[in-house]
């Protein structure tokens, strides 16, 4: 579309340039034509002057012959001089036309002959007096004939010049007409082309405006939906918070009054009564834990991250130390490799390790020799932290449910828990712009991998020392 519209504009421009050139040429031609008209008038004028000059020369000669006065002689002289000038001028004017030059030659010879006769008459008057002079003038008496011949010649030349002019004017008129038509057609064409171009541009602009409007609308609705979504998210988080918070009070009261009942009326209850009371307290505690976990989850959702350069290795060490009471007395081997430094919220990242390691401790509980590894590796150029255990693992077909809130892949009877720990881990990792996934097989242990969003992660201070399978085997044996 763009290329063809350029071609249209170029062709219109070309036409306008051609019209300009033609107009210029036509203007030059018109000027030439005007010059020709002037030229013809000049020629005709000279021819007229020649007739007058001859008449003057004759009048001067006759006056002198009759009176012998010098003033007639002067008149004669002026006529002869002027004839010379006028013939010379005529020759210059028609120098480009050989035909006319020929005519001028004939005219000049006629005039020369006539002037010779006039000069002879004057000579006779001078030598022999009035009578001889008059006789000389009247003797030949062919003056009339001469004059007629000269007049004929001049008339012929005037006609020729008039014909030339007429022919030139006719050509000029025809070319002017052609020029007019050409200019009119060219202009019309150029205007049409520009109109078409204008229409095309108008239509394109219309289309573009429409497309822009559509895009703008789409953007606006996207922004609106994003705003709605984030608002809904905030509402959901605060809803979860207030529900959890408000649920906690009656739970405490259930537990509290059960406690009062046990303290004050315990002695009056039989074994079954006490067992039921114990169940009430247990259930209240269980729900209390659920509510607390839910609160923790919602708190992470609402919390702003505070990034700082953190040695992940030291977080792991702290988490292991905190977990010590849970694996006391067990044969559990920790294999902790070097971990990189990362820009992260260290408090939340410690929570990640605490939850992952606590899971690892929990699900290796039934192993005689438990091994838990923490290390780093590289996947597609991205640093990955992993936590591996040789515990009970899980069936990969349920992997999608692993990080869901309140999702559990084990029976409560086998392993206690609320199903919030991994949801919290995932939420923290996602808030850092990272990903988390797991690989496992039933009864074959589980490995959790996570990234932390590449840009801020720093280079390791020491070469990577990921722990491999072989080391695990060595450690086991």
């Amino acid at each position, binding site marked *: 579309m763009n290329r063809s519209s350029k071609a249209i504009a170029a062709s219109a421009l070309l036409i306008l340039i051609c019209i300009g050139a033609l107009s210029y040429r036509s203007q030059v031609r018109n000027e030439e034509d005007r010059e020709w008209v002037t030229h013809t008038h000049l020629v005709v004028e000279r021819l007229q002057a020649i007739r007058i000059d001859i008449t003057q020369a004759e009048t001067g000669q006759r006056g002198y012959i009759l009176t012998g006065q010098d003033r007639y002689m002067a008149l004669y002289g002026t006529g002869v001089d002027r004839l010379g000038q006028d013939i010379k001028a005529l020759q210059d004017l028609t120098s480009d036309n050989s035909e006319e030059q020929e005519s001028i030659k004939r005219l000049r010879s006629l005039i020369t002959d006539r002037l010779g006769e006039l000069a002879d008459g004057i000579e006779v008057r001078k030598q022999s007096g009035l009578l001889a002079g008059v006789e000389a003038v009247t003797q030949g008496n062919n003056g009339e004939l001469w004059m007629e011949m000269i007049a004929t010649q001049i008339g012929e030349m005037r006609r020729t010049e008039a014909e030339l002019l007429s022919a030139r004017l006719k050509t000029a008129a025809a070319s002017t007409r052609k020029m007019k038509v050409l200019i009119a057609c060219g202009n019309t064409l150029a205007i049409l082309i520009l109109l078409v171009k204008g229409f095309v541009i108008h239509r394109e602009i219309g289309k573009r405006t429409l497309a822009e409007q559509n895009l703008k609308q789409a953007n606006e609705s996207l922004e609106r939906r994003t705003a709605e979504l984030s608002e809904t998210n905030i509402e959901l988080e605060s809803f979860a*918070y207030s529900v959890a*918070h408000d649920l*906690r*009070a009656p*739970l*405490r*009261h259930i*537990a*509290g*009054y*059960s*406690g*009062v009942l046990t303290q004050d009326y315990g002695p009056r209850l039989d074994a079954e009564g006490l067992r039921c009371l114990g169940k009430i*307290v247990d259930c*209240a*505690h269980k729900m*209390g834990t659920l509510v607390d976990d839910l609160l923790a989850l919602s*708190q992470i959702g609402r*919390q702003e991250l505070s990034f700082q350069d953190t040695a992940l290795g030291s977080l792991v060490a702290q988490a292991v130390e905190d977990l010590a009471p849970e694996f006391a007395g067990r044969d559990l081997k920790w294999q902790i490799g070097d971990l990189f430094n990362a820009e992260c919220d260290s408090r939340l990242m410690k929570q990640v390790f605490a939850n992952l390691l606590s899971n690892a401790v929990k699900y290796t509980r039934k192993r005689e020799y438990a091994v838990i590894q923490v290390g780093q590796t590289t996947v597609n150029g991205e640093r990955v932290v992993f936590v591996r255990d040789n515990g009970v693992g899980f069936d990969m077909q349920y992997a999608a449910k692993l990080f869901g809130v309140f999702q559990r892949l084990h029976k409560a009877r086998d392993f206690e828990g609320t199903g919030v720990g991994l949801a919290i881990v995932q939420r923290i990792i996602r808030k850092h712009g990272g990903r988390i996934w797991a690989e496992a097989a039933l009864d074959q242990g589980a490995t959790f991998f996570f990234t932390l969003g590449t840009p801020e992660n720093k280079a390791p201070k020491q070469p990577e020392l990921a722990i491999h399978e072989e080391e695990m085997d060595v450690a086991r044996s």
Partner: protein
Amino acid sequence: MSHEVEILLVEDSPEDVELTIRALRRNKLANEIQVAEDGAEALDFLFCRGSFKDRTPSSLPKLVLLDLKLPKVSGMEVLRAIRGDERTKAIPVVVLTSSKEERDLIDGYQLGVNAYAQKPVDFEQFSETVRQIGMFWMLINQPPPPGTFVASRAQGA
């Protein structure tokens, strides 16, 4: 009132009031407990306004046990009012609440709370928490001498 109030318990839940008082009494920690069911009532008591206008102003509690989620005037606003007034700013205030939201902790300490405890779900733990708070603030802690308040009041007048 014949006896001086030792603890002002600001708590809107009757169950929590009952369980807290029970825990205190079983440990013989407070004979005189004044309960305020919302923040406004707590402030009326402390500043001898409204239904407490006949109370002796110089008689201030040894401890304020403050819940945060309260009708009318919130616990934080009560804390702000206590710390913002020369007559009451030295009273020990302990927040005892369901929430351990980071925001609440930060706000509480910034407003000058003396201690912050979350109410445990477990009744034994709850009783123990209340007992330890009462023990410390009633028996171990030395309260500000009475002159502290009198002098402040004289300055404020």
